[in-house]
């Protein structure tokens, strides 16, 4: 294999942050990063990785290790479905899914939340649901004679979200 065959390759010099691995390792859910030996079992069994080449949990672990902070904190970690197949399969107990939560947390704190995810967060605050039925679905329900959807009781949830600063993290007004 040579560099030229590899379409994804880019040159990094000072753009990597070698501290990233240590930072992630010291977060509550991120210590698995130190266990990874890049065997590829997680990606081999990841249902999402089979769907899109944009998401590769093993590569994400490597990117953390070499400190490609920008890419690590970009959209990539948000592809994870949190099915935890990777955690079940990892022979080293590197808890890949957990590490992904760790970097999502870091990303969120640094303001790297993709707009779609923010919108979902807003929905939870507003309605208690990640996503709300669209107008066409509501119309279909009506036609089928189904009852109207009752709004959820979000009072308790809102207390928690405010207390933890969730609304601020996602920039909810």
């Amino acid at each position, binding site marked *: *294999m040579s560099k030229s065959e*590899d379409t*994804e390759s880019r040159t990094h010099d000072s753009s990597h942050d070698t501290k990233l691995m240590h930072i992630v390792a010291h977060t509550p859910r991120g210590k698995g990063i130190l*266990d990874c*030996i*890049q*065997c*590829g*079992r*997680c*990606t*081999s*069994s*990841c249902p999402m*990785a*089979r769907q899109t*080449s944009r998401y*590769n949990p*093993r*590569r994400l672990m490597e990117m953390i290790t070499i400190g490609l902070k920008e890419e690590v904190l970009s959209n990539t970690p948000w592809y994870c479905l949190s099915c935890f197949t990777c955690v079940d*399969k990892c*022979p*080293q*107990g590197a808890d890949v899914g957990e590490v992904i939560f760790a970097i999502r947390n870091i990303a969120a704190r640094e303001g790297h939340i993709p707009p779609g995810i923010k919108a979902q967060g807003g929905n939870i605050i507003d309605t208690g649901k990640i996503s709300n039925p669209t107008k066409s679905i509501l119309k279909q329900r009506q036609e089928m004679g189904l009852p109207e959807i009752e709004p959820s009781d979000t009072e308790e949830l809102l207390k928690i979200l405010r207390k933890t600063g969730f609304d601020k993290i996602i920039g909810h007004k």
Partner: protein
Amino acid sequence: MKDSKSVLVVGGGIAGIQASLDAADRGFKVYLVEKTPSIGGRMAQLDKTFPTMDCSICILAPKMAECYRHSNITLLTYSEVQDAKGSIGNFEVAVLKKARHVKEDKCVGCGICTEKCPVKVPNEFEMGLADRKAIYMPFPQAVPRLTTIDEENCLFFQKGTCRVCEKLCEAGAIDFDEKPEEIVLNVDAIILATGFDVFNPKAITAYGYGKYKNVITAMELERLICASGPTDGYILRPSDGKEPESVVFIQCVGSRDQRYNPYCSSICCKYAIKDAVLIREHHPEIDTYVFYIDLRAFGKGFQEFANRSKEEYGINYIRSNPGEIREDPITQDLTIWYEDTLTRTIKPLTVGLVVLCTASIPRPDNKKLSELIGVELDDLGFFRASHDIDHPVDLTVPGVYGCGFCLGPRVGDIPHSVMQAGAAVARMSEELAGMEEA
């Protein structure tokens, strides 16, 4: 040294054989205890040994015969250690000689009894890929060369009928009344060489061992490619007896795995390379793939062998630990989902036969022996050396030594087992000579 010194060697694989021969040549009276009917151990089951491709049984059989003939060695096969007490210079060990129901001094090893015995049982030596009878010789080169009746399967012992072997044996060697016998040995030292077991990959359900017929272990493959094995050395799939178009080896099945065995078994990469080369030598039309994490071709000649396997034999090496294997219910071909970690591509590969390179694990017997003799086991279940670097073959009780795989994977190859055997004999000779002086 006085010529009255004696040693008990537990385990008749290559390490135990070498320890016995070295000790016997050194003037010790040796009792070699082996729990199966024949000495030979794992090495007898191998087809070739890496990286020189020596035929395994060819180089082992002369040593086995030497053990049998050596005037200083008493072979106690089909025997197990029952009890042990005492200390260096004066161990008292009780050995149970199981009843094999065939008289050692009468049986000529002709094998007529095995032909006519009506009971078929999976053959352990052939890893269950062939059958043996209830009266059997474990393998053609077995030492001692005599048959054994396996009580658990013999019709006479189970149902009180048959006795065909007794009628046919012209040498009059069959003895249904034989009883187990306990022998008490007085020895100056003990050498443990219990070897290793093979991890059962059923635990890793995603690979489908036990469920898919064409997923086999490397030990099973070893019998498949052996010219004197159940398929006469032809690579035939268990599902349909046909030659597969491609064979995949998967490394680190149950080893380098925190849930099963955290250590590296040390031998799997090397034997996979060897087996892949053997397959390509016999069947150049079969594609071979080796899935690995780190290709551990360390040790004399191995890296060179790995290079050659790639360039001369065209073995495909893929750096990946595959996620799962699925069987096509019609063709019984197997599809492996994997990520090539060097090109970062995720794809399926469909092949005819998958070989799981399973971890080598401690034998359960170690626990019993450790309790009887008082030697410690390490966290993994292998015998603990009294010092990892300085006293690698001394166990934690003076006068007890270890060699071979029962000390853990160590360097995990035959030459190192042979060296450890010699080292154990040297340590024993040093310490006993020291006692004599004192």
